[in-house]
Each structure stands twice: as C-alpha cells, then as structure tokens.
C-alpha cells in the first residue's frame, strides 16, 4: 500500500503552519496548475450516510462521522482494504483532489483536508460516506466532491476515497 501522507503531508503541513488559509490555498492551487504533484481537488456521488450521530469526536477515523471526513463523498478506503490515508492494494491515489476545511473538536482548530480518490477498480461499495460541509458545485472544482478525481489517473475508474490532513487552516 502506498501512503498518500508520504506523498504530501509533511511538506503541506509545514506550509500550512507558516501561512494563512488563503495563501495556503493559493499556493496549492499554483502547484496544481503547474503539475499534479499535490493531492488537491476529488469525487462525489450523493446523499446517503449523513453525519448525525452525537459526539463525533468519540469516533475514529474509520467512521464516516470522524471530523476529518467533513466534505468527503464516496466509499471510505478503510472499509475497502486500505486506511483513512492509504489506498487499498491494487489501486492508485489520484494526484489531484478536492479539499475541505474541517473542524477538529479535539483541539478546536480547523484543518485543510485533501480528499484523494483511489483509482483503478470499480467502486468499493462499502462504507458509503457523504458529507458536504462547505462543499461547492463543480464550477468551483477544488471544493467539489461530485467530480471523479481519478480523471487524471492512468485508470480513471473510481474505487474509494481517503482523507489526508494537509495542515491547520489559520484564520
């Protein structure tokens, strides 16, 4: 399994901690435009599992209600042979993605989260999770979870989605 965190988390977290949310997004956008190096933009599909459970902070990252999944829409890779940050065997992470801004009730801070699709097999079909906090329609693609973010992969088939914390969203 390939960890998407290894791909981006350290550098992005450092970047985020040094910069404001707006400048972080601008920087990520520039990187995305130049080359698909960072997971940035994503994929949705629709309704279903809603985040209505009490005490979401008590739930772990394999649960749809876990805070960092606040703008995910798809199948949780943790239920498909991967983890909340790693693709299942035989699938490849999307180099482009969508992002969310999620509130961590544990430390009271907001974080920028990259939602990367894992690609190369048909939809996993397990642990569907549809959350749409601050999600925008597809004319704002970097915030849209309806697109197939496997679109730039060698195999564009969508399998599941991971949630990778990029850094703190400084106000």
């Amino acid at each position: 399994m390939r960890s998407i965190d290894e791909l981006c988390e350290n550098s992005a977290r450092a970047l985020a901690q040094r910069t404001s949310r707006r400048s972080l997004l601008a920087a990520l956008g520039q990187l995305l435009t130049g080359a698909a190096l960072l997971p940035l933009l994503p994929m949705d599909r629709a309704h279903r599992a809603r985040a209505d459970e009490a005490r979401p902070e008590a739930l772990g990252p394999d649960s749809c209600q876990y805070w960092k999944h606040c703008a995910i829409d798809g199948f949780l890779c943790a239920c498909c042979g991967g983890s909340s940050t790693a693709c299942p065997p035989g699938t490849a992470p999307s180099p482009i993605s969508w992002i969310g801004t999620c509130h961590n009730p544990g430390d009271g801070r907001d974080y920028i989260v990259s939602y990367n699709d894992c690609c190369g097999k048909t939809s996993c079909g397990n642990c569907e999770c549809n959350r749409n906090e601050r999600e925008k329609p597809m004319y704002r693609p970097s915030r849209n979870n309806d697109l197939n973010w496997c679109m730039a992969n060698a195999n564009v088939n969508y399998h599941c989605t991971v949630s990778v914390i990029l850094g703190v969203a400084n106000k």
Partner: protein
Amino acid sequence: MQQLPPRSPHWVYVFDQAFFNETDARVHLYDGDNYRRLGQIDAGFLPAIAISPDGSTTAVATTYFARGGHGTRTDVVEFTDNTTLGVTGEIVLPAKLSETTPTLFSAAYSADGHFLYTAYITPAASFGVLDPLHRTVLSEIPTAGCVLVIPSGTNRVSSLCDSGRLLTVTLDAHGHEASRAMSSPFFDVATDPVFVQGIRSTRGFTFLSFLGEVHDVDFTGAQPAFAPPWSLVGAAEKGVWRPGAQQVGAIHRALGRLYVPMHMGGEGTHKDGGTEIWVFELATHKRVARWPLQPQGLSRIVAIQVSQDAAPLLFAATDTANVAVFDARSGELRHVEKHLGQTPWMLLNP
C-alpha cells in the same frame, strides 16, 4: 427487435448511476400509468444522458474500459432508438468526458437536434460539438474554467463559471466557435451558490441556490437574461428550510408550477434530499402547497420530475431507490415503485 408501445407523456427515464458498482450505470424506462418497467438502456461509467428534442433518441455519453473495470478507456456517445431501446450507432470521443453525478448539462442537444454537446473536464474544461445525424465530432471548444453545456437555440452553449457568470459560445454552421461573451454575475459562489442541476423552464432554465433563491435565466436571446431572483423561503425559514437533492426541482411549464424537494438543515446539507415537496406558482412566486413525505411512508426525495401534459404526473425518487408517482395537481400519491434501480439520481422526460 421488439417495439415499445406508442410513447406516453407519462413515461419517465430513470437515470440509475449504480453508485455501488459504477461501471454499470443504466437508464430504466418506466410507465407511470401502468406502473411497470418498459426496458433498459445500458450506460457504462459515470454517464451523461440526453434525450433528443423530438424524443426519438437517447444519447448516452459514457466511458467503457476494455476489461470491465480496467483496460483501455474508450469515451463514446451511444445512440438508442427510443422505439426499440436498441443501440443504433455511436461516436467515439476524446477521452475527456466530465465524469460526475448526473446533471442536465453534461450532454445536451441543440434545440433543432443538429448539434449534440458533451462536457469535458480533464481537469481543464472544454466541450465537444458533435453532429448526431452524421455521427461525427465537429469541434472541441475550451471554456476557460467554466463548466457544463447549457444549450440554447440552435447554436449556443453556455457554461457556468466560478465567478457566478455564464460564458456563452455561439457556433457557426460547422459547429466551430463564431463568438463568445461573458455575462454579468448572477450569483455569488461564496455566499449562496446555485446548484448546477438546472430546471427547464418556459424560456430557458431555472437555477436554485443552496439557500433557496430562484434564478430564472431566459436563454431565448443571443445572450442570457436574468430575471430578478426570488426566494422559496420566507425570512423566518431562510437557512432553516432549504432545497436539497441530486435533482432539485421540476417545472410544469403550461401550469406554471415549480416543485422542489425541501428539508430542514444547515450548511452542508444541500444533498440531503427533501422531506417535503413544496409547490410554487411561478407567476406570483407564492407557495401553493406543501406535501410532507414521511406520513406517506416515503424517505427523502433525491430527484424529481413532472410530465408536461394536461393531466401531469410528478415522479420523485427517494434515497432508498423507490420512485413515487403523484398526481402533480393534487399531490395525491398514486403509487410507489420499489427499488427502481440502485441509485436513481435523475429523472428525464422528452
């Protein structure tokens, strides 16, 4: 090949994205009078569906993989004869189709049926202009980040932009760009974005916003014209009740009625589906009915459509894949078809 019976205005094309095994989407043709399936159109992976203006043909723009879930990707438009549901031909496309949840504007015909437009995202945005009669690709037109293909007249395509504007490209007789123009902004994506699932209206399309503003856009002229927006919700309801679904509204054009799945919820609930259907009179902007769904045993409504005849039926798909059939004038529930596909997220009629 088996023929279908004569077409009825009470037929509806039920787009099933087959979310749990997305390489196997399909369209179910359903008869709202006899409550039976009439047949099926196969639709591949994350397809776009358009019915020709004369109702004779269904175009499916989709992606296939040579080995089922993997292998060489082929993007293609397949044409189905709506009298037999047999595939009659295809146009192979660049591997650029925008793969997304269903909208009316992922593929669309010109008003005279001579052009077919297909939305592309790679993630660079553009669209294809096709000749569905001669089954050829005519051109590809970049859209500078604006997305989807909103058709108007015989030769115009508008796309929604992040700035809240519409880009309108006018085509020449050969399907190439003749000119383009950008409209004024008509919504603010930061404060109250519009759903991309537009609703066909008398003179164009109506777009609803997340908070329930109604933006009616007149596409009959050379450039789109925006009516003053009005609201589905009163001051006390704003931000409390809101539209939400995969397909967020339907308009009966002759009756002048707008049907919207509404629910109570906050920011981020725009795909949650309606617990009630609200009915509005377009001429006065007045709400004329509220039809709660739970008392009728229905779960949330995620797609809605209305037939355009004088005795109209309202079709509503639920998040549990049932399709309810209502009398669109009285709200009387006539039938619930259980499990009409797996994830029926858009309902179409010619």
